[in-house]
């Protein structure tokens, strides 16, 4: 099976702030959300995940507080 990078269907870009454990996610529609108190290892796992959107939905979205910021 051949595996190659494809553009994610709903996550455009992600970033992480260690000091405040804040994960910032930009979605394909342009909206930006911050997730609070996300441990760094989870962020690293997300980077590795083959589908960012599915990972976010399964492990972060319903588990950590968030706020839309842009």
């Amino acid at each position, binding site marked *: 099976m051949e595996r190659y990078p494809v553009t994610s269907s709903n996550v455009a870009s992600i970033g992480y702030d260690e000091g405040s454990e804040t994960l910032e996610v930009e979605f394909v529609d*342009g909206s930006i959300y911050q997730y609070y108190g996300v441990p760094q290892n989870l962020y690293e796992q997300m980077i590795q995940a*083959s589908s960012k959107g599915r990972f976010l939905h399964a492990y972060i979205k319903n588990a950590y507080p968030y706020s839309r910021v842009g």
Partner: protein
Amino acid sequence: MLSQDPTYLGTVASVSGSSLSVHLVQSVASGLSVIEGRAYKIGQVGSFVRIPQGYQDLFGVVSGVGAKAVPESIKNSVFDTGRWMQVQLVGEAIGGFFERGISQYPNVGDSVHITTESGLVRIYGAHDKGHITIGTLSSAESIPAKVALDELITRHSAVLGSTGSGKSTAIASLLRSITTSESAESSFPSARVLLLDIHGEYSTALNDVASVFSVDPQPGEHKLLIPYWALDTSDFLNFLTGGVDGSRETAFTDKIFDLKVNSHKAYIFAGVDESSITVDTPLPFSLKKLWYELIDFEIATFEGPDRDQPTRQSDGDASKLIPPIYKPHAMGAKGPFINQQAYGIRRQLNLFRSKLVDRRYDFLLHPGPWEPDLDGKSKEDLDSLLAGWLGGQKPITIIDLSGVPSTVLERLVGSILKIVYESLFWSREKSEGGIERPLLVVLEEAHRYLSNDGTSLASETVRKIAKEGRKYGVGAMVISQRPSEIDETILSQCGTFFALRLSNPTDRSRVQGILPDGLTSLLDLLPVLRTGEAIIMGEAAKLPMRCRITLPCKEHQPRSSDPKVSQQWSLPRRKEGYERVVASWRAQRPRAVIRELRIDRKKVTDISNEE
């Protein structure tokens, strides 16, 4: 021999006014007739019957069936079969052409027939240009329901229905059929629609045909800004100062007038003659300067033998809203003395200042490129504002007002409508004006700003549009779930009604009052209409019709913003931090955060799992 004809229903037994009693024949006892391979239910309330009169056919609507429809005189007769039908005459067809109104009455004993699909096509099948298809008839799904666009826009319309009856889907579908009409004889590339979207439901549904303005814009949307200086001064002053009267109001208006004249002198505006400037002429002026000059006059103190030497200690700063400082006045003969000419408007000026610093009003009091500097120079003029609202690339402009505090909603709606109406009114002889390119204003959730006791700017402007908009090419479409709470003048000026499911009795009686007596029975259906089903009546529809509005495809349906309670309540509890809540509240911004973080985001890619 008549009973051989499968469409035969019965005979006319009595005629009074436009109402007929029809005695049904035994042969229709089953309640179902099969004609040309299609089954027709007999005696459905709201269905049509045909009464052939030789050269022409009369058409009527069934308004009642059964015991209640028995004529008074034979009510107690033992011979009565109980199979009676009450019919309201509505129109006649000569040849293939249907017309409302009748030229002659049927006679007792005339036969009454079911209207088959081909008959319905005669009634509803408008072939003229300028009709748009919005759905299909409920009684015959192969027949498109059409409304006349001219009457729909110019005579105004109202869409009424309870929550969940499919109002917003109906609107989305209607607007879509106007803007994306494919048929060759009716496409409308110059359509112009302004939609006031109170809940932010439509931006996703219509994104391909609409440009969106929002107080809190998403990517791809424009920021909604309203230059205060284009508004009517007295109403604006009321808002700014909490109400002023008499000489106090004059203090404000005189100053505004001076500032407007100075602005015109400095930057000459086309069409303005200096001698004809009034306080309401839409010319830019600086609110900060207005505030500064008024407060300066109020707090000034004087000294000296003639009490005419100002004691100003520091100049303050108009752009930062810092008032000048004077020596405090003192009692006795030495002074300093207070300004005897002061108007006593310090309370109003304080309120004025607090409005200027309130972020909620930024869209109005600090309208970005339309905010004049202290000299009254505005970077952009009104033309670019109107070009955005009325002359966008796309036929529909959505003004998304979700996220506007309800205290200012009404004023905001009023302001927008006022600017739009005034500009189209005065440009009526230009190709950009309302007559050459008419505008449809869609007013969502109208009961929130067009209330019964309306003396507000919004009510006044919509009332004006309802009364005289027809002449200047501005049509209104009022949408509401509480018709009984809407200003009566406005509702009574609406020529076309789309009544969706309505269960509240007061709301229903409001709608029922609109139809001629004979047909009110049609509206008894209102509480039992299916979702997305509407009774359309009035100017744009030849006859009241019950139709099912075409659903737009899934991604073009308005998003219902109801929280999914059962789904959300079933989630495990997340950690919560109410300091974030307070931060947003204080900032008056849903997307505010406690600390602004600079987070570098990296573009991400997924790994494909397919071969």
